[in-house]
């Protein structure tokens, strides 16, 4: 059994596209995820430390994230504020920074850890060498309800928030908050072209049925 030590997937790697900011939520905490032009991925508390505006509506300029309200600039990696337009010739105080969370890219997903001492070495090892990431499904229902309906589809726990169906599909559960869940998926083996699209569609269809059942039950 794999203990996830606070590491959760929040987005597919290929979806954290350049010059974009992903808006995610993990255990009630909103996270802004963005990639600089060098490829480095950032996962920050989704709130500018100045006046609390969501960084996910900000501008990813390829090097820095700029808050939409007053245009404060935050450096990729450290989250350090590097420029305050209202005081252009002054260096912002060191204490002004966006709050970065632990972040890693594994198995085609961006993983985030909200904890203080997040250790990348503790991202769950799934034992997969070749894999295909599937469409992530949002469900307006609590984790337990989703897991229950997934169990009916043959998915059994294989770790904290990790389920497997014994025929090559691994599901990774991202609890957004007490009433919302995202189910990420991996199929063992690397598939291409038409076969891949067919796999993606099949998975999407069956998880959508699980979603609908879980939401009907939660209503």
């Amino acid at each position, binding site marked *: 059994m794999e203990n996830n030590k606070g590491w959760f997937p929040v*987005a597919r790697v290929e*979806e954290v*596209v350049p*010059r*974009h900011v*992903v*808006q*995610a*939520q993990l255990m009630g905490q*909103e996270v802004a995820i963005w990639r600089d032009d060098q490829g480095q991925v950032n996962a920050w508390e989704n709130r500018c430390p100045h006046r609390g505006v969501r960084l996910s*509506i900000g*501008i990813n*300029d390829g090097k820095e994230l*700029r808050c*939409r309200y007053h*245009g404060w600039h935050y450096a990729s990696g450290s989250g350090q504020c590097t420029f305050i337009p209202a005081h252009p010739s002054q260096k912002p105080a060191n204490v002004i920074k966006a709050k970065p969370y632990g972040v890693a890219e594994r198995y085609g997903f961006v993983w985030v850890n909200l904890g203080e001492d997040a250790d990348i070495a503790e991202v769950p090892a799934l034992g997969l060498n070749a894999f295909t990431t599937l*469409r*992530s499904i*949002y469900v*307006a229902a609590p984790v337990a309800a989703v897991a229950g309906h997934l169990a009916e589809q043959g998915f059994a726990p294989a770790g904290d928030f990790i389920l497997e169906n014994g025929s090559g599909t691994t599901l990774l559960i991202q609890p957004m908050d007490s009433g*919302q869940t995202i189910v990420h998926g991996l199929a063992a083996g690397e598939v291409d072209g038409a076969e891949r*699209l067919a796999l*993606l*569609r099949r998975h*999407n269809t069956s998880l959508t049925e699980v979603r609908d059942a879980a939401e009907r039950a939660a209503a």
Partner: protein
Amino acid sequence: MIKLYDFELSGNCYKLRLLMNILGVKFERIALDFYPGREHRSPWFLKINPLGQLPVIDDDGFVLRDAQAILVYLAGKYDPSGLWYPQGAAEMQGRIAQWLGFADAITATASAARLHDGLFYDVDIDKARAGAHALFRVLDEHLWFAEQEGQDWLCSSGHPTVADIACFPYVMLSEEGGINRLPYPAIRRWTDRVKRIPGFTVMPGIFPADAVSV
């Protein structure tokens, strides 16, 4: 010059301002006092559009109402590339019409919610929000699979069409009606792509994709 009967804060009027800006078509805005004046229901305007709705265009005597219809007309008449509304391509025109209808459904839900929350229109707000979320799920799934096939737009791989313009505004303004887009990452990527179309212009409530300055 095309006359556009317009209201600054109307997403439907913005669809036309947006496409005309992209196509480089000059137009004259005739601003109606939608709020608080309800000028769109005044006798003089009802003579122009008996439905009492904005937008309407008057192109040198050719008068047309309905944002989606006007988008089709403008693309047909003023797009030399023929890419915004491809002529003589039945499947493509069918797809576009499908998504123009979808845009109308977005107006009936997300725009209604926005009018309720902002201007206190009498709307069944729970139904409007639930309706918008149901549509956004369909849209997110469609866009996600389109991306998997290398397509950036609602109806075509290489170029946006009037369908993208029609669906964009009330999706982008959905939070004003209490409809948040966090569950729809493919929609969020698509709205960024729409904002980067050359000639893109904003309306109040919508921000540009990139900083104007370096």
